[in-house]
């Protein structure tokens, strides 16, 4: 019986090529090689992260209210601008750089400063008048109640 030469068969080399292509795509999207052991703290910036805008948002739905949270440490509430229109929430703001007096020098500078502007479309229209925003401990929380008109209505059947 002839030994099975793995890799020399045209079928296998085509399969290898496809696999490498998929691996490269996976790497580009996630920043890690597929099936590679996770390396803590050393993940390169992935396409996933590059494709997103500051600030990162988490959205939850608690009953009839959307709760949007964002981590924005070191901001003043007057540096934040929140707008709601229909089903779109937009956040705008600026994180101001530190103003250091003369004679100071940086040892490390990791905290970024600059402007940001991000909009997000919610699954439903929200009641813009009842939107409440709080900023506490560097976390912005916006509570947006869904507009009454789009909520499902319970219809009682009346007996004739």
């Amino acid at each position, binding site marked *: 019986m002839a030994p099975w030469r793995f890799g020399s068969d045209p079928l296998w080399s085509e399969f290898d090529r496809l696999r490498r292509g998929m691996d490269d795509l996976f790497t580009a999207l996630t920043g890690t090689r597929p099936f590679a052991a996770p390396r*803590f*703290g050393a*993940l390169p*910036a992935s396409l996933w*992260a*590059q494709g*997103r*805008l*500051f*600030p*990162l*948002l*988490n*959205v*939850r*739905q*608690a*009953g009839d209210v*959307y*709760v949007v949270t964002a*981590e*924005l*440490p*070191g*901001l*003043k509430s007057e540096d934040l601008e929140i707008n709601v229109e229909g089903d779109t929430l937009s956040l705008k703001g600026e*994180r101001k750089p*530190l103003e*250091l*007096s003369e*004679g*100071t*020098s*940086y*040892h*490390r*500078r*990791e*905290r*970024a*400063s*600059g*402007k*940001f502007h991000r909009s997000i479309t919610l*699954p439903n229209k929200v009641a813009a008048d009842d939107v409440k925003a709080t*900023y506490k*401990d*560097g*976390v912005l929380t916006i509570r947006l109640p869904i507009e009454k008109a789009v909520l499902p209505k319970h219809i009682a059947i009346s007996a004739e």
Partner: protein
Amino acid sequence: MPEQELKIPEKKEIAPPAGEFTREGSYYTPAVDIYETPQELVMLVDMPGVRSDDVEIDLNNSVISIVGKVPVFSDDSRELLTEYCTGNYFRSFRITEVVDQSRISASMSDGVLKLTLPKLEKAVPRKIAIQSA
């Protein structure tokens, strides 16, 4: 020059260094600014979601460790979009400058911890007059 736009901060999860944390949960590396003035060393640590009571600062053998605990949030709400993860913060530094360890002060505001490490008297630059012999 175009306006500088804020980039996504990468939240790096850390492997527990030399000894695991007793408390379960993930730990992240907070972004830190450190600057030096003639009198002191100032550290600014971004720890969003950490209340001032939940910060632990420990100084041991000129290694300062900062732990920020983020309360675990849970209710019956449904997650629609999750772009960032929450977890505790940990970072430690070896202080190489001569710092007066008894006068270190810390304050927390808007999710930013400010640590002030005053320099020792003798380390503050002083003009020394040279006497002619």
